[in-house]
């Protein structure tokens, strides 16, 4: 790793945005701002912002701890409390961090929550996670927003109604009580109008991978691109500016016929175009990315960047129906789609972005993604006659990242892709 990470202007902007939020969180007790812990999938951050509260995302803290090589110690501390080796390592990493003083990955102390907003989609473990958090913060109220699964391939009126009722009866009253502010629907509508603009830009950004070479990597860089909408900036003017700047930069690359920028430098020759399913490994993120860079493999679409919202199939928030819109947004997150919908979405990505292959990074402790991935692979292979590959790692437990095994499997996969290209030619 001799080269330093190359930074684009948008990356610097994003870094400043996140640093600003962390600073605000650090001063929350002094400024009197209330702090809400919540999750990325189904993050109704617009509502949190409408009450002038600040969001904290435990799983983002965990992934940041993983990237900064702090997660292993936290996980071991949680296991000493009786947490199993088998369960979600995000949970254990955060529990470990909290019992060690709640010092965040970047060194700032994360303020204790004033409200635990259990809004989760497509992940049962999140519910159990907040039961654990409730024991760590026994005096903090929990507001639950249960998101029904899209088991029948559609959102029914009953599902939306159930969620809206929960927002009205459970979530909003608790937010009013904690924040001391009344619910202001007009304010929420304005914030949602910003979200809607951002959604449009995000779609355009991820659509640029239709180009050859693709100007972006929609997985490794993609997780940075979705940072602001998943990290407290949904519905903010800053998010609009950030995504506009990002889109401008990417379009410049398209016009200049350039490939993606990576930590190793610019990808000069695009050899393979892939669609990837599942979260990345965070503890060895750069090494992991480099494996693809070395092979000339660009990810043209990934499911993980849709974990905080799927817009590809046409969903946009509607500011005129704010609560219904929040409900539908939650139900449209990637892991809240059933397997057949996931197959259809991935199939569309493979076709639209002209991918050469499909790869699964299966995460040991994330059944929300992992259970069913082998069937997804079978389906895609059968329907599209496309080569499929499979690797395994974990979110933030470095004990489950085996560089040699992953490299071996990837090399075999790329050989398969190479041979197929030769045959097709």
């Amino acid at each position, binding site marked *: 790793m001799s080269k330093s990470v190359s930074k684009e202007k948008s990356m610097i902007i994003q870094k400043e945005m996140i640093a600003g939020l962390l600073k605000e969180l650090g001063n929350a007790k002094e400024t009197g701002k209330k702090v809400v812990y919540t999750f990325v999938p189904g993050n109704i951050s617009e509502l949190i912002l409408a009450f002038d509260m600040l969001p904290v995302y435990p799983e983002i803290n965990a992934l940041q701890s993983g990237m900064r090589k702090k997660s292993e110690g936290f996980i071991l501390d949680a296991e000493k409390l009786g*947490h199993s080796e*088998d369960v*979600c390592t995000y949970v254990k990493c955060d529990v470990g961090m909290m019992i060690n003083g709640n010092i965040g990955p970047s060194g700032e102390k994360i303020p204790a929550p004033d409200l635990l907003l259990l809004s989760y989609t497509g992940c049962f473990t999140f519910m*159990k996670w907040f039961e654990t958090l409730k*024991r760590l913060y026994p005096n903090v109220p929990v507001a639950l927003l*249960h998101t029904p699964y899209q088991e029948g391939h559609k959102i029914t009126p009953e599902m939306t109604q*159930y969620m809206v009722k929960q927002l009205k009866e459970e979530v909003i009253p608790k937010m009013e009580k904690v924040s001391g502010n009344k619910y202001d629907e007009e304010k929420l509508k304005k914030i949602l109008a910003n979200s809607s603009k951002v959604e449009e830009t995000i779609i355009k950004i991820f659509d640029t991978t239709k180009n050859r070479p693709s100007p972006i990597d929609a997985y490794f860089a993609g997780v940075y691109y979705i940072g602001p909408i998943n990290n407290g900036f949904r519905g903010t003017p800053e998010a609009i500016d950030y995504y506009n700047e990002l889109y401008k930069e990417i379009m410049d690359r398209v016009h200049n016929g350039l490939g993606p920028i990576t930590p190793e430098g610019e990808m000069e020759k695009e050899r393979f175009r892939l669609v990837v399913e599942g979260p990345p490994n965070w503890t060895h993120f750069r090494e992991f990315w480099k494996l693809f860079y070395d092979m000339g493999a660009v990810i043209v679409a990934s499911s993980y960047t849709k974990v905080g919202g799927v817009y590809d199939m046409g969903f946009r928030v509607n500011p005129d129906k704010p609560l219904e819109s929040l409900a539908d947004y939650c139900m449209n997150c990637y892991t809240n789609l059933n*397997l057949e919908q996931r197959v259809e979405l991935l199939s569309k990505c493979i076709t639209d972005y002209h991918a050469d292959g499909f790869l699964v990074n299966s995460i040991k402790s994330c059944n929300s993604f992992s*259970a069913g*991935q082998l069937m997804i692979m079978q389906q895609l292979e059968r329907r599209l006659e496309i080569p499929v590959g499979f690797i395994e790692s974990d979110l933030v437990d470095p004990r489950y990242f085996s560089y040699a095994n992953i490299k071996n499997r990837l090399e075999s996969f790329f050989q398969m892709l190479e041979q197929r290209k030769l045959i097709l030619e």
Partner: protein
Amino acid sequence: MEALNDIIKKCNELAFDLNFTRAKEWKKQDNSRVLVGYMPIYFPREIVHAANGLAVGILGGGDKKQIIKGDAYYQSYVCHMPRGIVELVLDNHLEDFDGFIFPSICDVIRNLSGMFQLFGKGKFVKYMDFPQNFLPEVGGEFYKSELQHILNEIKKINNIEVTPERLQKSIDLFNKNRKLTEEIYNIRSEFPWRITAADIYNIVRAGFVIPVEEHNDILEEVVNLLKVENGEPHDKIRVLVIGAFCEQPPLSLIKTIELAGCYIIEDDFLLGSRWIKGDINTTKYSPLDSIVRAYLEQSTFSSSVYDVDNPKEGRLLTQLKERNVDGIIFAAPSFCDPALLDHPILQKACDDNNVRYISFLYSENTGQFKVIKEQVGTFSDSIKLWA
């Protein structure tokens, strides 16, 4: 106790018949009958019964089925039960089933419902999204719409309208079933030498695959037989086993715990059959609303249910006291997220209250019990010697 032994033998054969022969025979007797398979934990079987159907518990392949094809569908770090269920599907054990219900237990079972959709099995596949909001006008309304959805699906098959009268009759039968099951557990608690935990398991599990009317007859006979003294107490500790609410422990594991010096007085095996505590009361609401209310207000505690305002620790400790239990065995299937995420919370409650416990993992097809026997034996001895 020849009569009791005969019943247990018959129940064992029914319970572990992976071809579901009795259920399929029952269906063949009438063209309007339907079979609806449901995965572990709770499902209100009353509604299927009222629609002239039989809700059949599908609990996996256990240690009775070699898993070959199922392994191709799940990574090594996913629990064993779903791969057993996939093996049953691919080996055509579930032919003749009209529909499948997947209660919201965890992410694995949720995605298993999607796999069944892709397999194209049954005339309907329903992921049963039990509400995690327990307000009648919020979660209750949603739950009712989920139940109605299932009734609509069955009606499409057999055109039977579920009237309040039909549903009332079904509720009465299942109330009786729950009452008799609880009575057996109560007798067991008072006279644990009269019947083993493994035998109770066989008897209760048989009820997952046969009509409730037949099961009620069996339970009634068992209760009558157990009222008569049939043995003498052994020097064993009284334990509660928790964590096995979904993937079932192999029968030999239950036997091993008892052979190692324990009476299993309370457990969460086959939890669905005991999920609703007490009768479903239909005097205040319509029968369907009464089923909804019972779920919201009379559910037992389980790792699959959101639990912050009604803490599970307190209820576990109460259960411990009511059943006069000496210690707890935390036995969960490997990779079972809900159970394993509960264990630190429950174990802390045990630590804080000086309750003795041990913990181990199993799979539905675990075949080696020596280590578990030694661990449980040591646990039992330590309580006998030092408690």
